[in-house]
């Protein structure tokens, strides 16, 4: 059996397990409800903004949005993103900000839970350890991506229902934003799987994963404050700017960085997992 087939079987089981477990169902429900609530709030804020700027034309509002986005993303990208429904863009930013929390909660016991009860021993006589590890990583990424897609779907429907965007605009921009969240999610899943797999106690895995995420964020903030740009590269969310770029080279840079993160952490994790005693 080739390693890909092994990974496929492990991923299939991870999806079944996560979407059937109480923890998985609660987290999914919370994510969807939270997403829906946030969307409604954003739509309400949007409506308030419109009302307070009732004397401005749509073109003027667009120009204000473009100016604002240009300050964050640069002129060209600001212009490009100004066409997107604002709620969807804000939802993407919220998703990638909250994503690590969801990833940590969803994946902390993926491997450590199996190590704690030694259930992993049923697998390691049947699959290469590296396949098992990669399967766990891809499984956690697939779960997060599926939930994020469902969340996006809720947002699109609510946005269309409130008349804030057309179906074409929702699908076109919404799908693009969801795709942007995938490589960033992969990077976080890679880090979470690597950290969590080092421990046999799931609770310890969770705490250390949170701590690791916090340290990464802290390094990013310190880098930003002190002007050391290289420090900011350690934070996967940093690459959203690149991933949102209409320029192919910028996009490729962001994609490469995120997938590089995911690949490097997974390769390291799989190497350690292959050599350790279970």
């Amino acid at each position, binding site marked *: 059996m080739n390693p890909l087939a*092994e990974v496929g079987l492990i991923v299939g089981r991870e999806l079944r397990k996560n979407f059937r477990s109480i923890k998985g169902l609660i987290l999914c429900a919370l994510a969807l409800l939270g997403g829906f609530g946030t969307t409604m709030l954003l739509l309400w804020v949007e409506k308030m903004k419109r009302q307070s700027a009732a004397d401005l034309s749509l073109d003027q509002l667009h120009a204000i949005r473009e100016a604002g986005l240009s300050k964050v993303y640069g002129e060209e990208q600001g212009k490009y993103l100004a066409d997107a429904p604002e709620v969807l863009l804000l939802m993407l930013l919220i998703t990638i900000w909250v994503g690590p929390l969801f990833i940590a909660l969803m994946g902390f016991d993926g491997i450590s839970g199996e190590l704690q009860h030694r259930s992993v021993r049923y697998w*390691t006589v049947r699959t290469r350890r590296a396949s098992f590890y990669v399967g766990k990583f891809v499984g956690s990424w697939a779960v997060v991506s599926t939930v994020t897609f469902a969340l996006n779907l809720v947002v699109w429907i609510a946005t269309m229902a409130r008349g804030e965007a057309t179906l074409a605009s929702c699908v076109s921009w919404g799908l693009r934003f969801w795709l942007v969240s995938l490589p960033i999610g992969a990077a976080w899943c890679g880090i979470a799987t690597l950290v969590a797999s080092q421990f046999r106690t799931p609770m310890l895995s969770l705490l250390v994963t949170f701590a690791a995420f916090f340290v990464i964020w802290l390094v990013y903030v310190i880098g930003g404050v002190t002007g050391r740009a290289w420090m900011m590269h350690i934070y996967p969310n940093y690459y959203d700017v690149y991933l949102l770029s209409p320029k192919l080279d910028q996009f490729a840079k962001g994609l490469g960085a995120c997938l590089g993160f995911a690949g490097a952490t997974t390769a390291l994790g799989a190497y350690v997992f292959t050599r350790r005693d279970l």
Partner: protein
Amino acid sequence: MAEGEQVESDAPVEERKTKKKPVEAAVRIKGIVKRFGIKTAVDGISLTIQQGHVYGLIGPNGAGKTTTFSMLAGYLTPNEGTIEVLGFAPKQVDELRGRLGVLPQDALLPSGDKVGEFLVHMARLQNIPKDKVLPEVRKVLEEIDGKDWWDLRCGSLSHGMAKRVALAQALLGEPDVVLLDEPTAGLDPKVAYEVRQIIKARRGQCTIVISSHNLHELEEICNAAAILDRGRVVASGSMAELTASSHEVHIKVAPTAGVSLANQIPLQALREIPHVKRVELDGETHELGVYFERREIDAETVIGHVLWILLNARVRISGVSKGRGLEQRVMDLT
């Protein structure tokens, strides 16, 4: 169409066959050492287990049985030495896929999985052809008397049921080597008996390695064993060699009130039995030991002669055993 399907479903079996190495020994362990920090759990164990044998790993707590077992299953990596299972290192999963079945000790089944889907998942990872997965899983479930357990969650099983499901996954797909770590530990006598029957039913079909504390069980099931103590092999060989059943018999004698045992037992007559080397009487345990030349005479013939002499001397006999019994042997060595 049917022909095409046949070819497709048989392909993985062919693939497995091509990875087989012609080996005499099912398991070959050479000088393995395993240290946990400063503690040496296994200290230079070497063993060879022939194909088709039921082999026991015996020893007290801390002897290194489970550590050795874990290295055989690939869970632990030895610090020194080599292990070969069917000619491959235990971590060569692809080469050993479906050929090595393992019942780990204390490994919980995934509580959220249903028994059926867990076994199906395991079978698919073993590369059992898709069309044979369900029949194979049903077969092992039937073998462990659990054919109605398909939809039960593993987390809801009793200890005995969980042990049998764990045994079922080890027996999936007719593996060539089956490693069983404490297969009856913590089971009630009835379930333990049933598990022993399942293992016995597999005797001769594959090589079975059992690590256990239960010496009576091992004596009953195994045809060879190694006795471990403090991480070393202190004795190994066939069960007959270990228990000395092929060169000594023991007769438990019931004392008669007012008569000395030494006067009652015709020791000289016993010593004159052909090929008997030595006769010993233990006055405290009331046990008579008769030691003989195993190449010249078998235990059954010696027992016949000894009993004839003792019964003629009106000695009351309360028990006869070939050899010293595995338990006694282990007690002597560890």
